[in-house]
């Protein structure tokens, strides 16, 4: 079926991969809505606007006669302003839903996050979609993503609109601005020899192309018969690995191998982190080492993606190893260019 696609956040990291995937497969009607414009393709219509302004998004959907919306827009995780999260993730999503319903859009796919089920301290062991939202979310980002997801799923069926939500975990890829820079920072600080925990906690990651592919599949397969409408799906690379293994593999791409490894039990990490947090509270500086970080590196955080496999037909296109290689390549190239 020929759709008129709208990718909200189509200039962002995941959104751009979706746009390119749609172009590649020969879609002729693609529109992008974003707050900035970074890409200028002649085959794509671009709307620059603010999601928190209903008229901006409504006009775009109406004018372009959109039938399928993929909503990927969200401020970055580490954004400071709580207000911005509420404005974009919740109010913005409300506007998207209203505009879809008022203009007779048939399909809405929402980029949620695996963290909507994370309370900040519990282990996530092979978690599937039966897991409830936590009573108290870890932070505003997670809370607002969950609120947005709920709104989207509740809108399923209204005026013929079908919706679903994808919950990717640990998206990374070439030129990402969160995962790979984080790994590289540890390397540049010379901290790769420290290991907190015993490295027996498994963690999931998602290569960005797989994440984009899941979105395209979700639009294609969104229907009542497929049992995809009104549903949420965890999306990962399907291969959880011990936390420090991916770190060390990424460092290895830069020919960096820790000369030796100092292992700290996680309890020791918590003590140090508590002091660091106390010190930063006194000095008023941002703590570099927090209890959250200790938890982040020592707990299990992986998902059962069989629902996506069975109902969306999702199977990762790029495996974790190849994905990590591709993700590092632009950084390696830029290091090499600097040397020249």
């Amino acid at each position: 079926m020929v759709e008129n696609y709208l990718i909200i956040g189509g200039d962002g990291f995941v959104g751009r991969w979706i746009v390119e995937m749609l172009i590649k497969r020969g879609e002729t009607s693609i529109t992008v809505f974003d707050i900035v414009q970074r890409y200028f393709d002649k085959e794509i219509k671009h709307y620059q606007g603010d999601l928190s302004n209903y008229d901006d998004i409504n006009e775009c959907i109406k004018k372009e006669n959109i039938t399928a919306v993929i909503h990927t827009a969200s401020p970055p995780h580490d954004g400071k302003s709580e207000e911005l999260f509420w404005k974009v993730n919740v109010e913005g999503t409300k506007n998207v839903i209203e505009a879809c319903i008022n203009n007779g859009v048939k399909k809405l796919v929402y980029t949620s996050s695996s963290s909507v089920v994370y309370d900040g301290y519990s282990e996530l062991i092979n978690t599937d979609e039966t897991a409830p939202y936590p009573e108290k979310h870890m932070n505003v980002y997670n809370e607002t993503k969950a609120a947005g997801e709920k709104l989207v799923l509740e809108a399923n069926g209204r005026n013929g609109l079908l919706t679903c939500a994808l919950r990717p975990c640990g998206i990374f890829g070439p030129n990402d601005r969160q995962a790979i820079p984080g790994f590289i920072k540890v390397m540049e600080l010379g901290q790769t020899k420290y290991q907190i925990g015993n490295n027996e906690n498994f963690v999931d990651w998602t290569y960005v192309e797989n994440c984009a592919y899941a979105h395209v599949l979700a639009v294609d397969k969104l229907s009542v018969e497929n049992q995809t409408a009104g549903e949420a799906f965890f999306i990962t690379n399907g291969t959880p690995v011990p936390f420090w293994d991916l770190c060390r593999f990424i460092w290895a791409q830069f020919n960096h191998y820790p000369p030796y490894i100092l292992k700290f039990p996680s309890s020791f990490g918590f003590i140090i982190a508590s002091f660091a947090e106390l010190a930063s509270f006194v000095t008023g500086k941002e703590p570099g080492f927090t209890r959250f970080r200790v938890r982040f590196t020592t707990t299990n955080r992986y998902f059962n993606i069989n629902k996506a496999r069975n109902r969306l037909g999702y199977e990762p296109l790029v495996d974790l190893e190849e994905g990590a290689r591709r993700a590092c390549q632009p950084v390696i190239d830029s290091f090499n260019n600097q040397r020249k």
Partner: protein
Amino acid sequence: MASSFLQSIFHPNEIVALIQYKFFRPPPIHVIPPEQKTKIRCYEFLNETSRSFASVIQELDDGIRDAICIFYLVLRGLDTIEDDMSILIEKKEPLLRNFHKTLYKKGWTFDESGPNEKDRQLLVEFNVVIEEFLRLERQFQDVIVDITNKMGNGMADYAKDAAHNKYGVMTNKDFDLYCHYVAGLVGIGLSSLFSISGLEKPELANDTELSNSMGLFLQKTNIIRDYLDDLSGNRRFWPKEIWSIYVADLADLKKPGYETKAINCLSTIILNALQHIPDCLTYLNKIQNRSIFSFCAIPQVMAIATLALLFKNYNVYTSVVKIRKGETVKLILKCTDIYEVANIFRYYTRVIIQKNDSKDPNFMKISMACGKVEQWCQTNLPDIDSYSPQQDNDIMIFLIGFILSAFAAYLLHYVNQEHLDYQGRESLDVFD
């Protein structure tokens, strides 16, 4: 015997296991009536030809034990002919190809095996195996004949294949195919026998992919462990597709100066074997009968324990690497249900994770293969973490004193008895 205790001296729970195994394990209860002389002889052969399988086969339930014993002896006979380099190919080929027909020839024996074939006596008295084979139910016979036919022809094809004999296994696909003929078929045959016995569901016989993986995982582990031994007999089972990444000739791996390449090559072939684990666990999870479960699971846990020991272990290229007897016995005693077995697999994949290092060219792939085992366990046995295994640690604290004194007493006893008790020394030689 005393040496197994000494090897385990720093692993007190293995000492417990050894004591438990040696003194407190009820012997198999079935008794063969003395007038069934050929059957008695068959079980004697089983004990003589197999240290690994004799005890697990004898502990099988009544409805299946004889069929498995005969299946084992038939394949052992076939294998003895295949291995025998003193038999010319012109003679060997028809023997292998027709071995399944021989099973119906009452009184057939074969005394032309080379003098060095350790199991030549089995063929010399093969008429007893045939006699017992013909006593089996018709459906059991059909499975044994079918597998013997396929394996015999597969072996004959390899024996005639000049390239295979000269260069060994080439691609990874060849590796799987070779292992299918010598071990995967055994797995497939066993599944059929289990189903026919009624002790397992009829569907098990149709899970040929899983049954094949069971055989491949064991065979590949043996091939990896036996690098040195096979090479000295000019047998080359490591696929060229793997070793040619690192060296120009398979034999170079053990040469000085190639240590890093040898270790990396070892990781590559171990990774190849690890990928069968989810299939093996899926298969074991389908088994219902307790005696069949132990029979299937024991070799599998030995294999993962062996792989964990071989991983990053240069001794593979200099000597024979084996798991401690105490460890073996501990594992045997634990193989009671899928939760125990899954936890054993998780334990050894964690050993592999701890040894893995980012300089290894297969670092990430090995990490992912281990993650798959963990995820299999959590997906198929969701309550595995709340399942409390046989808590050896708590009991340990109370038992350590007892064990050490028992050990000392045993040693004293042993030293006094040593020159008298050669028989006793062999009694624990399982899984050599």
